[in-house]
């Protein structure tokens, strides 16, 4: 196949699968802007956006701290079982979100091993805490996976130099280690946030899907679709907001890559 042939095949495939459908969605949203806008600004939708924002923030913070510590352990730690650590961290990536949801319900449900909370008024399942847990679980790997190769590449020489210049362990960490991995961390955070915003399967299971209370943005999209009776503008409208966020994420990824963040 000549060069043009391959190009046509590649671009053709991308158009069929990616570009044309996306363009179509934007078109449909534009067709009924009023309907879309009404859906976006409805109180339940606003509540959904707020919940997604809250959950995403928590997931990002938790997994950034966890991710940095974990990466340090994997690359530099002297713990036995580092290899296992590395493998376990990747596990959420290969698990179906439904299974994640099932696992959480099994564990924290009223009859589960950790059901104590549920039974004593500290509701986890079918309430916000389980959404947070599910989101943390599925976004676990991202910061770690970005920081590990960067840490490996940098090596420990800069910290050693810092020590010879008088820095304590903590000082070396703050002034040398963290700054040297900052772009990898930022990139990981961007990926984490995107995944957190986009989580559907696990959250659909554990949240109870109560509009206005435990409905995240993605669940809201589905809700808008199910109750749209053929007029999909509301669903497209809310989906459009999420798609726009995803594009922002893509732009962030593009901008961050040259700064030494790994893909």
């Amino acid at each position, binding site marked *: 196949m000549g060069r043009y042939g391959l190009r046509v095949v590649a671009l053709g495939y991308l158009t069929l699968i990616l570009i044309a459908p996306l363009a179509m969605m934007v078109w449909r949203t534009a067709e009924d802007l009023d309907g879309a806008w009404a859906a976006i600004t409805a109180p339940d939708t606003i509540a959904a956006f707020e919940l997604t924002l809250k959950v995403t923030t928590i997931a990002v913070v938790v997994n950034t701290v966890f991710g940095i510590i974990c990466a340090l352990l994997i690359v530099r730690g002297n713990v036995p079982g580092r290899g296992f650590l590395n493998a376990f961290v990747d596990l959420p*990536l290969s698990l179906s979100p439904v299974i994640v949801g099932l*696992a959480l319900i099994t564990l924290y449900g009223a009859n589960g091993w950790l059901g104590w909370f549920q039974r004593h008024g500290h509701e986890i399942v079918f309430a916000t805490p389980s959404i947070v847990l599910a989101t943390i679980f599925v976004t676990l790997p991202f910061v770690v996976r970005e920081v590990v190769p960067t840490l490996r590449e940098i090596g420990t020489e800069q910290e050693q130099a810092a020590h010879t210049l008088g820095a304590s362990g903590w000082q070396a960490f703050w002034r040398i280690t963290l700054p040297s991995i900052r772009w990898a961390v930022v990139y990981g955070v961007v990926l984490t946030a995107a995944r957190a915003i986009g989580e559907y399967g696990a959250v659909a299971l554990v949240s109870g899907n109560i509009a206005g209370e435990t409905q995240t943005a993605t669940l809201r999209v589905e809700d808008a679709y199910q109750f749209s009776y053929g007029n999909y503008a509301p669903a497209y409208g809310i989906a459009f907001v999420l798609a726009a966020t995803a594009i922002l994420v893509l732009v962030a990824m593009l901008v961050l890559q040259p700064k030494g963040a790994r893909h």
Partner: protein
Amino acid sequence: MTTFLLVVVVLPIAAVVWKSTGNGWSGFWEVVSSPQAVAALKLSVITATLAVLTTAVFGTIIAWVLVRDSFAGKSLVNAIIDLPFALPTIVAGLVIMALYGPRTPLDVTIGSFHFDADITFTRTAIYVALLFVTLPFVVRTVQPVLIELDRELEDAARSLGASGFTTFRRIVLPAILPGVLSGVAMAFARAIGEIGAIVLIAGNLPFKTEAASIHLFYRIEQDPEGAAAVAVVLLAISFGVLLGIGAVRWHVTRHERG
């Protein structure tokens, strides 16, 4: 830290496995061999396999074009490849529905020839949704390998008389195969468990378009132990396939290990 991870990651899985034994071995087997469950599992495995194979082929072509070709707008195209990563899966489903759903503009009738791109409630819908979702995997694992690949190797082959295709088959393909296999493994794990992208477009008709993930979803309410059983089987299949691909990959790279 290992304990923290153990608790966060391993415990939930262990709970599921435990739950699946709730009705004993016979209960487990009963659920798992029930016609509906079997149909769902079969559907998931087949569509995932087909989608991943398609993605492998086209993903490699796309990676090749992105690395070796140059045209206006190439960097834009390169950037969109990551869109399925960044997009919420439910939105992905809607996006596909926009063009291939009930109100598709691609609905033509010319004489007795009728073409309707509406694929809702069909298995094709699942296939297309999975294509969308797995697109980045192979492209992004093959690209770096292609970039690193020394053009001189191909030049050497050509100077020794090999045609373009032979050069590809004997020089380039072996080099990128591990990358393709990695991408395939990740894509498969993703595809077999996908729910958000297919839940709207597939219609979830039992025995027809109900994938394993959907089947699980609805089973959990009435029959948690049964759901857990199906989940365990799904996990086992994923694990088996991943191991298999890993073994192939190991075999393919055996000469590089010296």
